[in-house]
């Protein structure tokens, strides 16, 4: 393994890129609490899986932390009121997605009290059973806060069922501009460690490895101090290289295990959770607080006061900007691009009237200089995208096929393995929007797959109809034959009867 690794390194596959991180000075600002917004809009779908089902009525008064929408199905997450107030609407609002399409949300007018609901706090959380911890995590509506928003309890249960041995805690925060995980580790290291201990109990893993990129020395130092008494938790500095925070890459870096392309991390004995999730688990179990807000980064050239803020879910971006001091003055304050998440994988928002959701790790107000785009030129096959690709794909070959509408060709080259990290497009000297191509092709392929399924379903229905018709015809024919036979028999007996007296 070691030899192969060094051989691959010599042969030059140093995957990933080193973008300018733009994390400071925002990362060094103390955390500020965002003032209470007048109204919040809580999206019913802010996690992977089925949308939550509203259980409140318009006009109903709710407390902060009260359940307002329940989880539906196996993979889902419940939703809680992020502040106290009155439900004013349940309806559509622009979803935080680049499509600008609407999604269902519960709107809540704040009463200004921000009063918590009564909470159930266990006497000693560390004596809870593994299943109990997972259940409480599920009740608290906790999802992966690194951005994937997969329901955390499902992963905890999966880990326990698969018999994993290692819990990997992702504190790498490799996206430029973002520093909320960094800040959280610096300020709440003790709580994060408690969360990790609870997750260790719940998953049954023996060790936890906290991976932190080496561009965050303060976080590494604080976390190392916090884990000092716990032999089962280790803090491992990892090289700052994007996308180190991607699951598969971090698993290799911390455990040396490679997850097969058709398998899950749990299949090789590991599970990855974000540090923010660990903190949310601690809050939910030790304090009984459901997930109603998060620490997130506000950054970018047009932001007047970049930094990390404690924000309630449902806060509109427009309120966030206004409550943090607005945009910068002059032309620099013009937002050229509004991005939710980091610049490498985040999505552009159509306008500022969209709410903060559980997966919002950051809001970037990029100014014209930061958002500058160049026209794309022809590919010169320089191969930089190949060197940068952390998955070992051939982005230039895939995009060439997609341009020719050869989706199967792209698929054969491993399109499905693409994690859309954006390294290829970041290094492309021709400014080709490679990730855009891949999203397009993936959408096209899944559309075609659906069409095939639809076609098969239609075919099945048609076949059923055909056999039904045939059966009906057969039955009719049989009935007719029967009638005919009966009539013939009748005529025969009649004839016989007629004959008899004669």
């Amino acid at each position, binding site marked *: 393994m070691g030899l192969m690794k060094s051989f691959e390194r010599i042969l030059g596959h140093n995957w990933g890129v080193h973008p300018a991180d733009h994390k400071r000075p925002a990362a060094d600002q103390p955390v500020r609490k965002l003032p209470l917004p007048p109204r919040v809009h809580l999206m019913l779908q802010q996690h992977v899986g089925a949308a939550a089902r509203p259980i409140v009525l318009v006009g109903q008064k709710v407390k902060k932390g009260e359940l307002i929408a329940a989880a539906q199905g196996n993979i889902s997450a419940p939703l809680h009121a992020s502040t106290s107030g009155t439900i004013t609407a349940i309806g559509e609002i622009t979803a935080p997605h680049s499509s600008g399409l609407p999604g269902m949300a519960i709107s809540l007018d704040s009463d200004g009290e921000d009063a918590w609901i009564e909470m159930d706090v266990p006497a000693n959380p560390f004596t809870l059973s593994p299943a109990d911890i997972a259940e409480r995590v599920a009740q608290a509506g906790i999802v992966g806060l690194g951005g994937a928003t997969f329901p955390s309890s499902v992963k905890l249960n999966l880990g326990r069922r698969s018999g994993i041995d290692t819990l990997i805690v992702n504190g790498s925060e490799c996206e430029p501009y973002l520093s909320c995980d960094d800040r959280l580790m610096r300020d709440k290291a003790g709580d994060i460690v408690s969360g990790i201990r609870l997750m260790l109990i719940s998953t049954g893993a023996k060790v936890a490895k906290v991976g932190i990129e080496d561009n965050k020395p303060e976080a590494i130092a604080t976390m190392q101090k916090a884990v000092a008494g716990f032999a089962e938790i280790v803090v491992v500095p990892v090289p700052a290289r994007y996308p180190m925070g991607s699951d598969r890459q971090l698993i290799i870096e911390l455990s040396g295990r490679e997850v097969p392309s058709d398998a899950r991390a749990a299949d090789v004995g590991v599970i990855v959770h974000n540090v923010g999730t660990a903190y949310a688990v601690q809050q939910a179990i030790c304090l009984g607080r459901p997930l109603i807000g998060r620490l997130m980064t506000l950054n970018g050239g047009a932001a007047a006061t970049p930094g990390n803020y404690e924000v309630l879910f449902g806060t509109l971006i427009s309120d966030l900007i206004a409550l943090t001091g607005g945009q910068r003055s002059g032309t620099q304050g013009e937002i050229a691009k509004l991005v939710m998440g980091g610049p490498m994988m985040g999505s552009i928002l159509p306008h500022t009237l969209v709410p903060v959701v559980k997966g919002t790790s950051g809001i970037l107000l990029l100014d014209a200089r930061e958002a500058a785009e160049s026209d794309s030129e022809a590919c010169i096959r*320089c191969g930089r995208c190949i060197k940068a690709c952390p998955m070992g794909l051939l982005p230039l070959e895939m995009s060439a096929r997609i341009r020719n509408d050869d989706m199967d060709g792209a698929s054969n080259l491993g399109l499905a393995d693409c994690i859309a990290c954006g390294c290829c497009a970041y290094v492309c000297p021709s400014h080709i929007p490679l990730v855009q191509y891949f999203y397009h092709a993936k959408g096209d392929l899944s559309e075609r797959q659906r069409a095939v399924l639809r076609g098969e379903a239609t075919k099945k229905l048609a076949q059923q109809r055909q056999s039904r018709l045939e059966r009906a015809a057969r039955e009719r024919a049989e009935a007719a034959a029967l009638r005919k036979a009966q009539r013939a028999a009748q005529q025969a007996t009649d004839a016989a009867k007629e004959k008899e007296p004669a």
Partner: protein
Amino acid sequence: MSSAGTPETDTGVRLAASLIASPHAHGGNSVAQTMLRVKMALVPATVFGFWLFGWQSFFLWALTILSCLGFEVLALRLTGSKRIKATLLDGSALLTGWLLAMSLPPWAPWWVAVLGGLIAIVVGKQVFGGVGQNVFNPAMVARVALLVSFPVPLTQWVTPLPLSLAESPDFVHSLRQFLTSMPVPDAMASASVLGYSKTELSRGVDLLHSLYSVHAPGLSWLGSRAGSFGESASLLIFGGGLYLLARGIITWHTPVAVLAGLAIPAAIGHSVDPAHYLSATVHLLSGAAMLGAFFIATDYVTSPNTATGQFVFGLGIGLLTWVIRTYGGYPEGLAFAVLLMNALTPVIDRLIKPRILGRDRKGKPLTIPESGKA
């Protein structure tokens, strides 16, 4: 159900940004910048070449580049391109012309430059669909086409006559010689090391005698010897190559493989039979070896994608060059070797692909290791 958001009344900021997929950041690299760095790497060797071979070499260089640019514009016009200016500014045609000039005899007449530009740009590049689409290295296509069609002017070498010397022809004289295609004066005609040794070998004079006779062209590390415009200063070319490596424009795989592919058989041959096989040093410092290894074989468009593929490609070029130089009819074979390997590039790319993470070399998902769960 009522509408939850009331965007009409709220003071939201609507953005005009193009809704494009991530990433929303870029490393700042561009095609033009990459090409510019390659040109910068060529400057020392080129300037030294001007000094060695005088004004005429400058005219040749300038006209070859102008010809490439001119034919690029013409081809783009004919194909109805809307990005003529942008394409010219990316610098690829200019670089093709520059590399072609470096591979020509420094006193080649004007029509060689014009015809070379036509072949390189139109036949070598635009008929394939322009930048990024060509299968063969355009400069080498032109060089080989010229060599095969016009062997005499393409093998007419001159002794270096540095500009500082009194005998060096002046501007006007050089221009007249360049434009009228006058034959090179006998006193100045010379032979390259590779050409001379080949001729002598074919006359039955072995290398031990021919290379050490008084008339033999010298093999100077400083480049003051007959040869192509870009051949003479092998060390400056090498230096330019190191600059490209340092700036990350090229990786070591191709150049090291080309030089190794050439030097290893040469060293073996020379150690077995020094009378018939030139030494590795002569091979590496002669002809287009250095230019080819660092500037020609590393051409992005016509070389394989992967590091391993590039290594195989480079070895092939080095080896074929040695074979052609040693056993072939031409004293220099790098251009042929490059074209042959260019033709193999799609095959190499098909056979050598990076391993996808989580899959084996054949593309099958990895099996779940039992030890992983232990």
